[in-house]
Structures are given as C-alpha cells and as structure tokens.
C-alpha cells in the first residue's frame, strides 16, 4: 500500500516540475514572440564590450555638517548621471550603486559600445547647482522672428528659414558674426545688457520641448545663458550665476503655513542658506523684489541644475535671514524632488574615478566562447567520472544535471528579460563551478542509498531511508552555500556580484532539482527491473556494495538470504529460525579459528571469494 502511495506522490512531484519548466519555457517563448525579447540572456559589459567606470562619491571635507555620503545622496547622484547620459543620446546605459554603506558605496556606470570622450567627461564631473536671475522667458518651441503673428494670434508663414532669420535678427550690429560678449555694460546681474547676440540666436532656435537637457558650453557661471525648464515647458535667458549650490545649507519639503501659523495644506520647499549664501540671497532678493511691480519676468530667479532649470520662482519678499520658502503648484512628490535637487546641489559631491575599463568586444566574446568550452569539457569529465563510479545511477545524475542546466538557463534568461540581469564573465565562472556543487548533491544522495544497501536494506526502502538522511545533509550544506552567496552578493566587490548571483541561483535550483526530480525519479526507477533489482551495472547491486551475502532482516526474527533475484516482498528467506541459524553459525565458527578481529576480516574475504566463484 505504502509503496503505491510513494510512487504516486513521486509521479505527482515529477509532473509538477515538468509543469514548472513548461511554464517558464512558455513565458520565454511568449516574451520572444510578443515583445521580441531575446531567447538568450543579455551579456554584461565584460562579455559584450563597452566602457565601465566605477565612481566613488566623496563629500567635500570643507562643507559643514555634510561629511557623510548617504544612500539618498547616492540615489540622487545616480539620477543625475542618468539624466546626463540620457541627454547625450547614449542608450542602454546601466547605472547602479554597488556595495553597502560600511565599505562606502560606489556608483558603477556601464556604457555599451565605445562612447566618446565628452560623454565620459559628462559622467565624471560633479553636478552643478546655480541660482541665476531670469532675464527673458518664453514658450519652449523655436520662434522664427520673421513669422509675425497674424490677427488670430497664431504665427504666420515665415519668410525665411529659422537659422537665417534668427541669425539676422540676433546680429544686432550687423557684422555677420554672432558675438558671445554681453551686448552692453551690465550694471547688475539682472541687467538685460548681459544678453549677447549668441544668446538671442539660441533663444530663437532652441527647441526645449524636444531636448530640455544641458547643452555643451551653456553653463558658464559668468555669462548669460539660454536654458530650458527641465520638463521642457519653458525657455529662458538667464543672467550670470549669483549663488552656487554650496551656499544652500539645507532644503526640505513640507506643508506651508500661513502668517498665523495655520497649515495651508499646500506643499512648499524650505530653503536655508549658510552665512555667505544669506548675504548673497539678501542682495538677490532685494533687487528682484524691486522689480516685482514693474517687470514680472525679471522678478523671477532660476534654480539651474546641470544647465537645466529645475524651478524658476518669483521673488515675493526680501529675504534677509537666508530662510526662503518656495511655493507653487507643488505636489508632495514634486516638492520633495525639488528639495532633493537643492540638497544635492548643496552637497559638493565629487566623484573619484576608482577604475575605468574599456572592454574590447573581441576579448569579451573570446572569453565567453572559451569559458563555455571549459564548461562543456568540465561537464564531460564529470559525466565520465560519475559513470565510472555510479554506473547506471550516472544516468540519473546526468538527467538531473541536464534538468538543472535547462532550469538555470531559463531562469537567467527570464531574469535578464524582466529584471535586467546581465550575465558577466564572473557569472559564467560561477555557473561552471556550480556543476561540481550540483553533482555533489547526487553523490551525497547515492552514497547514502548505498550505505543503506550495505546495511542490508532492500533497495526500495534503501532509497526511502537514504533520502530521509541525505535530505538533511543536502539542505544544511546548500544553506551554507546560500549564505556564502548572499554575503558575497550584498557586500559585492566588482564582479563578485555576478558570481555570487549565479552561485546562489544554482544552489536554489540544485535543491529544487534534487527534491523534485532526482528523488522522485529514483523512486520511480525502483519499479524498473534494472534498478529495482540491483542489476550488476545499475550501481546498486547489493552484492557489489558489500551487503554481505545479501542477508536482509525481514522481521519476525527471520533473515532472508537475498540474492538480488528474489521479489522484494518475498518472506520465505532461508526458512531458518534464529535458533537454527545460531547453531549454524556456531558450527561455521568452529570450523574456523577462534573469534579474533582478524578472523572476521578473513571470514568476509572468504565469503566474497566464494561469491565471486559462483558468479563465474
């Protein structure tokens, strides 16, 4: 009864694994057909080729109160680097933080292909936050000065193309060249005399709706610039920088309060300046506030991060104490975001380039190819060795390794399609090493079964008992491996993460395979004559495994002289009772010399010899 139950359960478990594998495969195929996702895992830079930079952020030791780089800073820095790289048009750049706070976090920037020097410089430099007065604001689209607005307010048909028209209009002194110097002698940063011919030209031609990011050479702190609102909603000409991000000591978002101290419910961003910033901000606010009634445009100032305007609020009061509050149509999220940007700008976060690698695509593919060959060679050797050691059982081992291989491949491809995992060279090494660790589970299991057979158990129950014992060992030893992988993963050093990941993944898959594949398969194979009756080549031959004389205790004080040919349920045995056997043994013993330990060995030797003889 129990037998059929275990077989039934084994079939069920095996089937559920098949379903699991089929589900994963169909997920892959569906992804491939519908979303054009590849059927192979995407490769990391060291296999694909590209440039990888490892940057260590460091806070400026001179700034007060902000000597530690927090997780928030790292996230913000990653965000900024991503915006810069995206703006430069390089796609598929991967920017991640690496390591934990104990050892200092690093930022890893991986750019596929061979990016130009400017892009790399862009990544290396630190973020610049500046406060500039607004000189002119307008719609984000390019404006053709020759297209005069008609009666309905819509622009008419331009008479000349944009570049020519803009150049003619901007070239105020008509010398055919666009001056980059200010047009007049400005008396303060809010003076429109800062606007150069080049600025005017840029203001006409620039399309902020399309590319609101930073433009090369447009962040000179001592000149007027043309800049876009970050979301592309407005275009500005801004005066020279009056304050740097370092002048801000603190920024946070919160609910605004009215003059009576009641919460207004609107989201605001609170700014606090340091001593120098307070002075500068006081001067700025006095000048801008004076323009409030006469010139609402020049009443505004722009907060410029990396050449793009994050916010351009109007100055509604003179702020003498360095505590400003920016209000507007903020949501909780946008207020927090602005506060973060201000904070980040106020943190002079510089990057140390720890390492910069330009990885050759040729070298990468050669490594991958050779690595895979090494893996195949290793696998082949393992298979040969297992066949020698475990004979028929090696088929089970091979099947399990094959199943594990399919599952690992599927898991890695799915992870790479859905979670952005990339297979690195260290990951490939992890996979190859995993062959040995996976195969070891089978070895532990097989050895346990053999031990049980040696104890004289019939094969079927040896499989059950051996599994019960091997399971514990396999689980605890895989746990050790998992912990090792997890520790390595979370304290990653360079390529370690990829290695630890595949090691951990294969350990988990090893557990799944041995529980859901190898053991059920063994149970089912016991029904097959070749294995179940311990054929000489099955690797489970009781005689070969030294279950001396194949004697099995079958209960009721009886011992069955198993020959491996009897039915497992056979209870006939020798038909001798204990007393009879004891007498028999005594007689046998007397025929040999007295019972010293050596004698026992000798006796066994003889038994084996006798058996060997009978087999011939």
């Amino acid at each position: 009864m129990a037998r059929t139950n275990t077989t039934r359960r084994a079939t069920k478990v095996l089937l559920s694994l098949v379903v699991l594998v089929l589900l994963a495969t169909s997920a892959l195929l569906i992804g491939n057909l519908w979303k054009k996702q590849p059927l192979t895992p995407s490769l990391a830079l060291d296999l694909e080729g590209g440039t990888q930079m490892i940057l260590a952020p460091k806070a400026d030791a001179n700034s007060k109160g902000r000597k530690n780089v927090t997780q928030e800073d790292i996230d913000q820095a990653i965000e900024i680097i991503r915006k810069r790289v995206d703006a430069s048009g390089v796609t598929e750049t991967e920017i991640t933080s690496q390591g934990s706070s104990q050892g200092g976090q690093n930022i890893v920037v991986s750019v596929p292909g061979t990016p130009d020097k400017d892009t790399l410089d862009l990544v290396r430099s630190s973020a610049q936050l500046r406060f500039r007065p607004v000189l002119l604001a307008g719609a984000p689209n390019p404006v053709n000065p020759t297209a005069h607005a008609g009666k309905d307010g819509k622009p008419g048909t331009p008479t000349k193309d944009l570049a020519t028209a803009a150049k003619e209009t901007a070239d105020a002194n008509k010398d055919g060249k666009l001056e980059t110097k200010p047009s007049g002698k400005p008396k303060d940063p809010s003076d429109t005399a800062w606007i150069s011919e080049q600025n005017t030209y840029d203001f006409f031609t620039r399309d902020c709706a399309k590319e609101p990011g930073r433009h090369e050479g447009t962040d000179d702190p001592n000149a007027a610039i043309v800049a876009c609102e970050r979301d592309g909603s407005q275009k500005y000409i801004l005066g020279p920088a009056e304050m740097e991000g370092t002048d801000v000591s603190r920024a946070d978002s919160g609910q605004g309060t009215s003059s009576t101290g009641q919460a207004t419910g609107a989201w605001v961003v609170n700014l606090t300046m340091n001593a120098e910033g307070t002075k500068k901000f006081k001067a700025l606010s006095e000048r801008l506030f004076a323009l409030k009634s006469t010139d609402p445009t020049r009443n505004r100032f722009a907060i410029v991060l990396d050449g793009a305007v994050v916010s351009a609020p109007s100055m509604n009061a003179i702020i003498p104490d360095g505590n400003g509050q920016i209000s507007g149509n903020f949501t909780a999220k946008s207020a927090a975001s602005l506060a973060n940007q201000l904070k980040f700008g106020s943190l002079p976060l510089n990057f140390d380039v720890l390492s910069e690698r330009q990885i050759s695509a040729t070298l990468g593919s050669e490594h991958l190819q050779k690595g895979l060959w090494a893996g195949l060679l290793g696998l082949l050797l393992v298979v040969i060795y297992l066949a020698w050691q475990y004979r028929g059982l090696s088929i089970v081992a091979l099947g399990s390794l094959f199943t594990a291989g399919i599952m690992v491949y599927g898991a890695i491809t799915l992870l790479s399609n859905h979670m952005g995992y990339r297979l690195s060279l260290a990951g490939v090494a992890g996979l190859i090493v995993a062959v040995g660790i996976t195969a070891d589970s089978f070895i532990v299991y097989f050895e346990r079964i053999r031990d049980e057979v040696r104890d004289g158990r019939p094969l079927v129950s040896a499989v059950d008992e051996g599994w019960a014992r091997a399971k514990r060992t396999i689980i605890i030893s895989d746990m050790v491996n998992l912990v090792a992988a997890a520790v390595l993963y979370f304290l990653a050093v360079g390529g370690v993460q990829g290695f630890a990941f595949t090691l951990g993944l294969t350990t988990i898959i090893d557990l799944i395979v041995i529980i859901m594949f190898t053991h059920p398969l063994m149970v089912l194979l016991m029904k097959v004559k070749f294995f179940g009756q311990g054929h000489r080549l099955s690797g489970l031959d009781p005689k070969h495994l030294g279950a001396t004389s194949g004697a099995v205790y079958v209960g009721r004080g009886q011992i069955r002289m198993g020959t491996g040919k009897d039915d497992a349920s056979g209870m006939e045995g020798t038909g001798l009772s204990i007393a009879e056997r004891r007498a028999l043994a005594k007689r046998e013993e007397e025929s040999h010399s007295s019972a010293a330990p050596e004698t026992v060995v000798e006796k066994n030797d003889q038994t084996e010899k006798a058996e060997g003889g009978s087999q011939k």
Partner: protein
Amino acid sequence: MISFAEFGNQLYSGEKSFGFVKYRKVFIGVGLALILISGLLLGLRGLNPGVEFRGGAEFTITGISNADQNKAYTVTKANGLNEGVRVATLGTNALRIQTQTLTQDQAEKIRNGLIEAYKVKAADIDSTTIGPSWGKTVTIKAIWSLVIFLGVIAVILGIYFRTWKMSASALLALMHDITITVGFFALTQVEISPATVIGLLTILGYSLYDTVVVYDKIRELTTDFEGQRRRTYSELVNLAVNQTLVRSINTSVVALLPVASILFIGSYLLGAGTLRDISLALFVGTIIGTLSSIFIASPLLTLLREREIKIQNHNSRVAQFRQGQGAASDEILESAIGPVQVGAHQGQKAQPSRKARSRR
C-alpha cells in the same frame, strides 16, 4: 585494483579504517606548520598585487598576428613612460601591457598608439585605468564579507549541530584553508586580482560545505552515543570520517574537474584573466578544503570535545565495558555497525543499555 565501491564497503563496515583521529596530533601539527609557513611567506615575501590593487593602467590587445613586445615599449616610451611598464604575452595571440597610474589623456594616447602600432581595431583593445584607492575598497569589502560570513555561519552551524564546538572547529578548519591558499599565492607570487579574491571567498562556501557533510554524518552517528558502550566518541567520529571518505573523494574530484578545465583553458588559451584567476584560487582551495575536512576538521572536533567531562566519563565506561567483555566481545564490536550477520544474534546486548540508577 580494488574497486571504489568495495573500498567504500570496507570503510563503511569498519573493516578497513584509517586512523584519522588516532594520528590527529600529526595531522593538526602538519596543518599548524603549513599555517605558520604561509604566515611567514606572507610576512616575508608578501603577495603580488595585480594592477587593480596597485593602481595603474592595463591594456590587453587581442587578435594580433605578430606579438612583438618591443612595439608596446616604443609606444609607452613615446608617451613619456620609461619605467614600470610590464609587457606580457597572453595565450597565443594576445598581449598585456601594464603601466603605472595614468591620466585619462595619457591612457587615451597610449591606447591609440597601440591600436596604430599593432594594426588592430578599436574593438580589439581592452584598457583599464584604476585609481590607487580601488584596491583598498576591494580589500576592505572582502574583509567585511569574511567577518560577516563567519559570524552568520557560526550561528547557523551552532544551531544545527547543537554544539558550538562543531561550528568552532569547522571555522578553524576554514581559516586553515584560507590561510594556506593565501600562502600558496605568496609562495608562487601569482598576481592577485579581484577575481582571485572572488575565488578565495568562494572557497569559504566550498570548504565549509565539504566539512558540513562530514559533520552531518558525525552528528548522525553520535546522537545518543552515551546510550552505547561499544565505541568512544572519538571512535565514532573516526568511523564517520571513514564512512564519508568515498563521498569526500568523489565530491572533490567532481568539483575539481570543471575548475581544472577552466584553469587549463583559462591559462593556456586565454592567458591571465578573470577565468584563470578565479579557477586557480578555487583549484588550490578545493584541494586544501577537502584535505582539511578529512584531516583537520574532525580530528580537531574530537580534540575539543574530549575535554568535556561527559565524553571522558563515557570513554572510561567504554574502557570498563571492554575490559569486562574481554576478547570475546570483539565480534560484537565489529557487528555493531554494518550489515546483518547471519547467526550472530546479539541477544540482550542489542537492547539499549540502561543507566545505573546512580548515574541517572
């Protein structure tokens, strides 16, 4: 030749037995001596840090037909580098050039110079510039990983085996493995790269894994060891090591085969690189890890536990029992573990012994 399975049978039944515990002082002594030598080597010769730890630049050119090293020296000299340039041939068609720390511009110039000199495409050249602080970061993190790993593992093993002595001796054996592997690198002066560090950290997992399998057998055999008087604790440990010996050998062979194939392909076909560095550390570490789980971990465990009063009491009871039984009991002793012996009924001796009232 005796077959492996037969060898396993004899080890299992105790018919053949290696005195791993008996000669423990020799084994542990050898282990200590090796650790000492490794320490001395480390102190006197030190490790040979790779470019990642020294800081500097490394260029690898692949797919060149004429691996003339002089061209590389000409290029570096043209860029004002007269000292500290190392050029090495890798595999069959690759060249590696290592220099001291370079500025971005210098690195760019040398890179272009090499492309021109060896007539290769930009995709065939691999360049790395590493700041001097990178290696320090890596080292600090590796040490952190080690400390956290040891802490977590000590707790897990302590809980699983229910005795801190097992986790202590497993960790001591682990330290032994790591130290000797590092000593190997100090002896051979093979360059240490981050990949080597990965390899070393993986040995942590592997070596422990191997030890845990042996310890699990010990745990199995020694549960309720006080309930019998035939074998002392140390004898049971020795039996466990012998019974798992075939498994240990098989496991390490199976683990070594893929590693050896990466090592072979990595060093002969690719030259230095991630694959070779990982596999070399693993190769050495796996061998030492297997040896230590047999010769060091279990003997160390008996050494630690034999100080316990519980074990000492049990040992003297076993001795008493053996004296009382005389030579005649030897047969029973043999059959205590192993296949059923026909006609050798043990009578009431097979029953669990009852403790004397005074000892309960």
